[in-house]
């Protein structure tokens, strides 16, 4: 090979590397929903593997991103409206709806979901919005607990989280034993599962910004759940956890199991400072 050929080969290689680079970066854009600016980039909390935490919105294609900036365009808002109807519907032997005690959700629920999971002293476990709803239903409403992903659980969760739209995620790990559940969740995050032998970190930390086929790997942030996925509709966080684990060719844990509650605690912390985006729009 002549020197000239080698030089042009080198230039080509550099060009290709550059293309890969531009293909791999999250977009430089700001998420504004109905005129309200979201925090889609935040300085990572101490002890975080990244310097900056990034919303999954920055990793999606332009058309997908556009769906989230206008709540009339956002297909997930239909579920939020259904959730609002549930909020106001009387159920159970106590003759109460959510609104009977909590009144106007836009006031009573504002900012609440940004601090979940919280410590639940009764069960001595972390509690998320779905389980908090179930606790209210069984203890205060005389209604049945929702089964996972059924009976309006996703819609009501989306409605409640949507009341915190724009509020930065912030957990208080000093509550009860939440810190030890965080540790446990960290173990889950870095444990490889299945025949494909992958952990959460394999894709969302080590390969963040790269592509698996057409899928641009994000940091795997959870600030937009329940999220509206273009291929499967409104999707709960534990459904997504289970789907990811299943894709490693592993048996997956039950929704709200200790393993997944620990993971939710840890992964939520990894998104500290990002705005709640529920219902976000993803592919």
């Amino acid at each position, binding site marked *: 090979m002549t020197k000239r050929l080698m030089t042009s080969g080198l230039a080509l290689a550099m060009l*290709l590397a550059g293309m890969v680079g531009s293909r791999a970066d999250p977009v430089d854009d700001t998420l504004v929903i109905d005129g309200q600016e979201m925090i889609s980039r935040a300085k990572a909390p101490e002890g975080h593997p990244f310097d900056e935490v990034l919303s999954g919105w920055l990793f999606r294609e332009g058309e997908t991103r556009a769906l989230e900036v206008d709540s009339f365009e956002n297909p997930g808002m239909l579920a939020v409206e259904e959730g609002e109807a549930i909020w106001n519907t009387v159920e159970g032997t106590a003759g109460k709806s959510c609104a009977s005690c909590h009144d106007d959700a836009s006031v009573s629920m504002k900012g609440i979901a940004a601090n979940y999971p919280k410590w639940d002293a009764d069960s001595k476990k972390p509690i998320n919005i779905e389980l908090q709803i179930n606790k209210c239903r069984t203890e205060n409403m005389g209604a049945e607990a929702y089964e996972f992903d059924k009976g309006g659980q996703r819609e009501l969760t989306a409605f409640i989280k949507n009341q915190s739209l724009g509020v930065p995620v912030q957990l208080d790990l000093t509550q009860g034993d939440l810190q030890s559940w965080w540790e446990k969740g960290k173990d889950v995050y870095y444990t*490889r*599962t*299945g*025949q494909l*032998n*992958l952990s959460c970190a394999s894709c969302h930390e080590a390969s963040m910004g790269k592509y*698996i086929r057409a899928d641009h790997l994000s940091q795997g942030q959870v600030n937009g759940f329940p999220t509206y996925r273009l291929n499967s509709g409104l999707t709960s966080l534990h459904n997504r956890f289970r789907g990811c684990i299943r894709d490693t*060719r592993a*048996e997956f844990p039950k929704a709200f199991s200790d393993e997944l509650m620990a993971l939710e605690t840890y992964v939520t912390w990894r998104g500290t400072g990002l705005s709640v985006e529920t219902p976000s729009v993803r592919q």
Partner: protein
Amino acid sequence: MNWRTTITALVFVPCLVAGAAAAEVAPNDVAFGDDGVSVSLTGVQGDVEAGAAAFKDRGLGNCLACHANKDMSKDLFHGNVGPSLDGVAERYDEAMLREIVINAKQVFTSETVMPGFYSLDVGKDVVKAREGQTILSAQQVEDVVAYLGTLK
């Protein structure tokens, strides 16, 4: 060649080939050397075309999920979690390619994302239907290695 050696060859060579095919190297018996895995897992020459098919198949190698490959530019959406495989046969010889496909963590580090395609050193809670199984069969590994050998 006299008649005697001819007969010997006729009798013994097929036996050897059949013997090698029967003595397929099990995943836990693969000998990883400093220069890779130099012995074929099956003794049967890999088939380039079958290797290309297994490479592409999302249920088998699904290699395009993570690697770009100009030889398959008609297929859309090549990933870039791993390096491009253009010219990979110039960077690694057959023994090294075989080792990388069998278990890349032997060649690189335990942090490597790439699954071991002929390894039982896997993650926890493997789905029941795939317990004790490898992602590719021994012959599929040989086929994929033969295909990779054409990427110059």
